[in-house]
């Protein structure tokens, strides 16, 4: 069935390129280790045979659309990735008229590494309740029914620790962080020209790789994504020192869902919770 996806994608890509509907199709191809996927940019219809789709297609390709402004482009998105499309549309970073969305009903993505095949589903697939793309022009695969609502068990487990234990946990994680910013680079929600962490004036975060600087980075990034993160978890996947970033992002996701009944990226017209308000809401603050 999934092999069938590859053929459908190749056929569609060929059609789009031949008709001139798009200049480029951003998809996946097999990497040089022979089996794990990597992003592919197809500009010629003769090249569409490079495109594949399998359970190693983990990358969130929506990020690349930020470089394709003004150029008609097709992009392959899984369920989670498609929410990033809505996020960027609502934040006016991409133009709906310039993108052709090939949505794929996601079969789940496996843990993989260089030359290291695994059948174990990535942690994000456990909590995923959006296997069906929320926005698409062409759908590959049959829509599936989702499981029961996410119980955020991973967050609850963290909350059984005391404040001191949590503080110690995150301080240790902060000691590992090397501030490579791979998390930021992979994230479609991080597109600022001059990220706050790069600014010298004011210098919010210094250049030292020290726990307090690293905590400043990770805390504020999680805050800037609050109400915007679509849980593709690419940040955690690309982190070279395996910091559990999903814990931070999902803690905010649960809070936003609980306080504002809001999930990011479900509609291109949605207004993110931090740039709106309800006069009479009670949030446990200030009362």
């Amino acid at each position, binding site marked *: 069935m999934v092999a069938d996806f590859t053929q459908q994608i190749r056929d569609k890509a060929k059609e789009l390129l031949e008709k001139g509907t798009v200049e480029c199709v951003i998809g996946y191809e097999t990497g040089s280790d022979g089996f794990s996927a990597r992003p592919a940019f197809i500009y010629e219809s003769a090249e569409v045979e490079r495109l594949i789709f399998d359970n190693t297609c983990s990358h969130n390709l929506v990020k690349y659309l930020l470089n394709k402004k003004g150029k008609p482009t097709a992009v392959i998105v899984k369920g989670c990735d498609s929410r990033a499309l809505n996020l960027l549309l609502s934040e006016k970073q991409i133009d709906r008229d310039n993108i052709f969305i090939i949505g794929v009903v996601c079969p789940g993505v496996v843990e993989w590494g260089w030359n290291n095949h695994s059948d174990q589903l990535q942690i994000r697939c456990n909590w995923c309740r959006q296997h069906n793309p929320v926005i698409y022009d062409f759908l590959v695969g049959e829509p599936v029914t989702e499981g029961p609502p996410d119980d955020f068990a991973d967050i609850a487990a963290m909350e059984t620790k005391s404040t001191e234990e949590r503080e110690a946990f995150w*301080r240790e994680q902060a000691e590992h962080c090397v501030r490579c910013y791979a998390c930021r680079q992979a994230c479609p929600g991080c597109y600022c020209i001059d990220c706050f962490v790069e600014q010298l004036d004011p210098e919010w975060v210094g250049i030292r790789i020290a726990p307090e600087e690293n905590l400043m980075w990770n805390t504020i990034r999680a805050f800037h994504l*609050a109400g915007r993160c679509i849980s593709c978890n690419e940040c955690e996947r690309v982190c070279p020192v395996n910091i559990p970033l999903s814990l931070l992002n999902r*803690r*905010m996701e649960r809070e936003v869902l609980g*306080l504002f009944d809001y999930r990011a990226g479900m509609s291109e017209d949605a207004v993110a919770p931090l740039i709106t308000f309800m006069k009479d809401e009670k949030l446990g603050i200030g009362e």
Partner: protein
Amino acid sequence: MSADNGPLIIGFLCNWCSYAGADMAGTSRIAYPANIRIIRVPCSGRVDPLLIVKCFEEGADAVLVAGCHPGDCHYNEGNYYSRRRFALLRALLDFMGIEKERFQVKWVSASEGKRFAKIITEFTEDMTKLGARKAS
């Protein structure tokens, strides 16, 4: 402030309501502990989470943001946004090991001098009991 002087509390007070409320505590000569240092801002909506996290990461023991009561904001809506922002920030900081008691948001009007003094007194007592932030 060093450990023997008690907690360092940094307060961000909005010019129109809470800063005036603190002034009112002064004109009424109502005493409260001297641990708080007040930074004036035009609106509680001006207080950036970056500033708050910086306070904690640099070793402040507690942070207070005070604004107008919802509905009374001088700029009409500032405190509605700051209310949402700080609800999320407080949850995030608590999750990361900064007790939510250390970060307080209070609505204080320009006439609530007595209440301001009471808030600071209680906050200082609670933070003294909680102890200093772990040194970074």
